């Protein structure tokens, strides 16, 4: 079962299912460059100020704003 990353449970292993193709091209490309592709294992560490999502990809940590995170679909592993 999939859900938006912004609504995903915290600290559970997740797999990035899809990135909304309607996201602006430069944003999708930046996500790709950071390794946020379909199939990548990620964890939602916590929600930060403004609803931003602090996520872990391997040993790396990123912050995505809530709106962008809501356009990434994840599935629990």
């Amino acid at each position, binding site marked *: 079962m999939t859900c938006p990353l912004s609504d995903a449970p915290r600290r559970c292993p997740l797999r990035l299912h899809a990135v909304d193709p309607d996201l602006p091209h430069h944003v999708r490309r930046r996500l790709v460059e950071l390794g946020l592709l379909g199939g990548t294992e990620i964890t939602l560490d916590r929600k930060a100020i*403004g609803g931003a999502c602090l996520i872990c990809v391997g040993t790396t940590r990123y*912050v995505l704003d809530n709106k962008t995170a809501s356009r990434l679909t994840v599935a629990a592993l």
Partner: protein
Amino acid sequence: MAAVCNCHDAAWRSAPAGSPVITVVGAPNSGKSTLFNALTGSRVQEGNWPGTSVEIARGTWRVEGHTLDLIDLPGAYSLEPASPDEAFTRSMLLDAPPDLVLVAVDADALGRGLYLVSQLLEHELRVVIALTKTDLAPAIDTALLAERLGVPVVAVDPRRRRHLADLAPVITATLNATPQRLRQAPWGGELEAAEERFTWIGTVVDGVVDKRASRREWSDRLDAVTMHPVAGPVVFLAAMWVVFQITTTVAAPFQDWLDGLFTGPVSDALRGLPLPRILEAILVDGLVAGVGMVLTFVPLMALMFLCLAVLEDSGYMARAAVVADRVMRAIGLPGRAFIPLIVGFGCNVPAISATRILGRREHRILTALLIPFASCTARLAVYVMLATTFFPEHAGTVVFAMYLISVVLIVVVGMLVRRLLWRSFGSEPLVIDLPRYQLPGARMVAQVTWTRLAGFLRTASTIIVACVTVVFLLQATPVGGDHDFADPELPVAESAYGVVSEAMAPIFAPAGFGSGEITGALITGFVAKEAVVSTWAQTYPDEDLSTAITRDFADTSGGHALAAVWAFMMFLLAYTPCVATLAAQRREIGLRWTLAGIGLQLGLAWVLAVATFQLLSVWL
């Protein structure tokens, strides 16, 4: 810029002609500039947050008897540019390839760093990988990684200058090898190509990284506080308040000592020399009174730069960008625009250059127009002088308030300009990588502090000396009466300077500081804000500056001195920061926008100053 520069351009080469050219590249915050500085002994701006280097630095590295020509390029996650600085990096790597590409790869973000490497290997280049931040990352088998990539991998620690010697023989050997294309560029669209590259990276790093290593627990726990919806902004404001308290209270005794030194022994020693009267006047009343007064602010500047360097090297600034994101969003700017704006609180000139990290031209223009409202450290010197004179019990809080007003001004002006000019901006998403917190390194902090302090001293020794000399000459030139040139009895009001200042003074009468003595400093302040205090010091050569300023503000404001001081500080905050900032703006956003910015700054500054005085004079 990208169209005219290439790695082999002799015009900006620092090494002897014919020296092999090595470009240092890497993802933002990969430790690239730290590595460049460690190898060349240069002092490029560095910090533990993304987007620190946007200027290109070039230096020499002497290795095993020969000289290498190193170029530090702006950080890039990939060879597909999303902003002008990334486009420049691509152009420098592919249009006129260097003799070798040294790639800084953050060991703690190995997969992300190898994405750029995977693209470089798709071109005929000599590539060497410097694995940075290995002290923070899980253990990595560099030999296995090198074998799988097909290029040398050397683990280095540029922050502590360790293992740098290991790079030399590898670089020398690679320079003697033939450049090779080690990977086929993937077929298909951009997304398919990226997937193929990350699949390849997955194969490369499999078994290379020790996955048993512990996670960064204390760093993660700290994030729970620094990015908390409530605690995050409180921590941010508290950190800034502490910085201003430290700078104003700790620096005070050092400032007093330096002031005593310049007005006492240094001035007395010069007066004791057998010099012609005019030369003595230039030296004592001009240079020592003016430049000496500016130099008393060196301890304050040093402390401010030190505190900011500690915050930057600790990794906190990336968290501050997240906290500030909502504010940036209100203006319609991306979270990344926080980086040039926060740089602007140090100095507006590099901040204008830092707008290159933004992808859209409208974002760059708006950010460059807002940066002059970020209160730079040159303005800090004037705030501190006025705050310690008029609000001695609350000087730190007054200075902190000026910085808060600066932030509010940026937001309000940003919202207004956006609504007027770019209604269709939309909000930009925040996608930012968080570096691990680290204990600030003494060497790194000292280096960053010194680099910035040296910039302040360069300004003091060039623009301010020029300003001080011009002000002295104008003050020494009589325009009436029976005085000779440089007559020590010549009143300022009867000098050329006094006439110009008095002509301007009525403009500021509604703001409560319509006196030639006070407003004259605003003219030199247009050239550089550091010159404001020095001009006052020259205007009142035989008086205690605090006493003279207190008297003048009281006289011109009709008894509302405190209201007039606030109005003056508001004008100082909002009007044109310095000519160097204007030059940087002209370079980045063009003459038309620069002129529009000057109009905005002067108009807004006057309105703010008048409104402040008229409002506060009811109570103060």
